[in-house]
C-alpha cells in the first residue's frame, strides 16, 4: 500500500500526471478514487475489495474525467485488458496515460465484501487467474500474491444452460430479461461501451425499442452482447451493476467462447493483438454466407 501511495505522490509531485485514478475506502467498502493532490494519496488502497474496472473512466465520453488532464490509473492485470481494448479501437493513446499495475491476489464479487477472500467470495472472473501483473504497466506495485482456489467450475452455470433445449433457454431468458428496466447501468459501467451515441439511443431509425417490454429488452440486451463479441474484457461489471439482477455475464461468456472457438480470439492485455471484428483471415469461417 505504501509503495502505491508513494508512487502516486511522486507522479503528482513531479507533475507527470494531473490525477491518479485508484481505489479508496468508503463507509461500506471500496470505491473509485480520483486524487489530484499529493496529500490525498494516503487515501489510496488496494486489496481484494478493489473490484471496479477503472479503465471504464478512460473512455472519451467521460468528459468530466477527461477534464482532469493526464491520468495515472491503477490497473489489475484483468483491467489492463480494457486499456488494451481502448487502444486497439483507437479510443486511447498509450503514451497519454500512466499505468500503475498492481499485483493482485484476486478480488471479491463485490466491493463491500467484509469477509476474507476465499473460494466462497472470489469473483467469477478470478477463477483460474494466475494473478500476474500486466505487461502494459509503467510501474508495478505490491508483493506477489496467490489467487485462492476457485469454488467450482466457472462455466458450470453456462454448461447447464447449454444443455437446455432452445425452448427452455428462451423461457429462461424471457424470465430474466423481463426484469430489465433499461437503466443502462450495464452499458455505462462497461469500459468498451464508449460509443458517442449508443445504438439504443438512435431514433432514425429506432433500431431498438426503448420501452422495457420483452421485445425491447431482448433487442437491447442481445444487441449489446453481440456488439461486445470479441470486445468484452470479461470484467463482470455489467452483471454486478445490474439492479435487476440479470446474469448478463452469461451472454458475454457464451460469446467469448464462440469467439475463441471460431476465431481463436481470447481477451488479452496485449494491445497489438488485432480485434477479431477488425481483422480478416483467409481461414475465417464463412459457412454463414449464403
Amino acid at each position, binding site marked *: 500500500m505504501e509503495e502505491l501511495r508513494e508512487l502516486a505522490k511522486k507522479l503528482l509531485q513531479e507533475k507527470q500526471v494531473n490525477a491518479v485514478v485508484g481505489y479508496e475506502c468508503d463507509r*461500506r467498502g471500496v470505491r473509485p478514487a480520483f486524487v489530484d493532490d499529493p496529500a490525498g494519496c494516503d487515501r489510496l488502497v488496494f486489496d481484494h475489495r478493489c473490484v471496479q474496472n477503472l479503465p471504464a473512466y478512460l473512455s472519451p465520453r467521460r468528459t468530466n474525467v477527461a477534464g482532469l488532464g493526464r491520468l495515472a490509473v491503477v490497473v489489475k492485470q484483468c483491467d489492463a485488458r480494457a486499456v488494451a481494448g481502448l487502444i486497439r479501437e483507437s479510443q486511447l493513446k498509450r503514451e497519454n496515460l500512466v499505468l500503475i499495475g498492481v499485483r493482485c491476489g484476486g478480488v471479491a464479487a463485490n466491493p463491500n465484501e467484509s469477509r476474507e477472500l476465499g473460494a466462497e467470495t472470489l469473483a467469477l472472473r478470478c477463477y483460474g487467474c494466475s494473478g500476474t501483473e500486466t505487461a502494459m504497466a509503467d510501474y508495478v506495485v505490491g508483493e506477489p500474491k496467490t489467487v485462492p482456489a476457485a469454488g467450482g467450475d466457472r462455466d458450470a452455470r453456462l454448461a447447464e444452460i447449454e444443455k437446455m433445449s432452445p425452448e427452455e433457454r428462451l423461457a429462461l431468458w424471457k424470465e430474466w430479461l423481463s426484469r430489465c428496466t433499461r*437503466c443502462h447501468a450495464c452499458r455505462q459501467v462497461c469500459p468498451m461501451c464508449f460509443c458517442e451515441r449508443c445504438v439504443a439511443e438512435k431514433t432514425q431509425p429506432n433500431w431498438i425499442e426503448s420501452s422495457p417490454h420483452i421485445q425491447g429488452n431482448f433487442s437491447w440486451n442481445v444487441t449489446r452482447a453481440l456488439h461486445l463479441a470479441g470486445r468484452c474484457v470479461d470484467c463482470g461489471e455489467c452483471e454486478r451493476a445490474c439492479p435487476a439482477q440479470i446474469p448478463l455475464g452469461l451472454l458475454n461468456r457464451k460469446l467469448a467462447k464462440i469467439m475463441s472457438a471460431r476465431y481463436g480470439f481470447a481477451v488479452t492485455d496485449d494491445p497489438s493483438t488485432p480485434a477479431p471484428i477488425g481483422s480478416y483471415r483467409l481461414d475465417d469461417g464463412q459457412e454463414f454466407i449464403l
Partner: protein
Amino acid sequence: MMRRMLSRTDLDALVRDLLGAGTRVIAPVRRKVQGREFVEYAPVQNPEEIALDGSQPVRPLKQVVFPPTETLFNYKQDKGLVQIQEAPTTFSDTLVIGARPCDAAALEIVDRVMDWDYHDEFWFGHRQATTVVAVACTDSDESCFCTAVGLSPESTRGADWLLIPAGSSFEVRVVTPKGEALLESNKSRCPESDVPEAGKASSAVEEKVRANLAMNPAKLQEWLGAHFEHPLWQKIALRCHGCGACAFVCPTCHCFDIVDELEGVGRGARRRNWDACQPALFTLHGSGHNPRKDQSARFRQRVMHKFSIYPSRFGEILCTGCGRCIRVCAAGMDLIAILAEIGQNAEEAGSTL
C-alpha cells in the same frame, strides 16, 4: 390498551381469501437467479411465498402503481386518418402485503406532483386500486436513512395498514378508510388483545438507522438553493457512471419518457417509460445543445430535485431514505456520505448564507 392482532396463519388465510376473490396480491418474495439471492416485490399465488422477515426488496414498490412501461393509448392509422383507442385508467384490485414503510411513504410523496394542477389518471388509477399493508422494519443496514428525512421504520405514511411484528403475530394499525374496509372484512382474524406494545424491536432498528445520518433538511435545502455552483458537485460526480440505476430503484423518482412504438402496419402505441436524469440524453436538445453539460450538472440535478426543488414546490423531500441508490451503485456513489458532506457545509456556512 387493546390492540388488534393478526397471526401469520390468519394473514395467510386473508391472502388466500383475496386471491380466491381474484385480487392481485403483491408481496416480497425470495428469488434466486444464478446463485444470487434476493427479495423482490412480485405477485404471489400462494401466501407461503411471502417473505416478511425484514429483507429489503431490491427494487421499490413504485412499479405497482407506476409500471416501467405503460401504454397511454393505442392507435390505428389508414391513409393519413387516425383512430385512437383509449387505454384504461382503472385497474383491477391489488393488495400489497409487506411493503416497507419507506416504499409506502414514497407513494404519498409522489402523489403531490402527480396531482399538481393536472391529475395523472394512470398513477391515481393504480393508487386507487391498490391497498397497501406495510410491515414495520425489524432490520436495517448501513444504507438506511429514513429517520433523516422525517420517516421511521414504523412510519404509517402511504400505508392503509401497518403491521408491527410481535412474535409470530402482528399488531395491526389501521391507517386509512381503505384500511378500515380491509379490517371490516377481516375482523374475526384481527381480535383485540391486551398484549404489551410491540414497539421495542423497531425502536432498536430506529436507533441503528439514526446512527447512519443526521440531517437538517431545512438547512440543507437552504444551502442547496444558494450553492448551485460549488466545487463539491464536480468532485462528487467524477465517479458517477451516468446510468439510471439509482433513479430506477428509487421509490420516489418518477421521471418518464414518452415514446411511440409501432405494433404492425398502421397501428401502434404511445407509451410512457421510466427515465432518469443521469444519462446525458435526458435534456439533450434537437439542436445538439445540452443545458446540463456534464455529469456534475446531472448529478447535482438529482440531489437538487430531491432536497431542494421538490421541497420548495410541494413541501416534501423527494426521498424516503430507503438507501437503494447506495446499495445499487456500481461506482460507490453514497448519498448518505454526500448528504453528510453537504450538511457539514451547511453547518459551516452558518449565518453567512
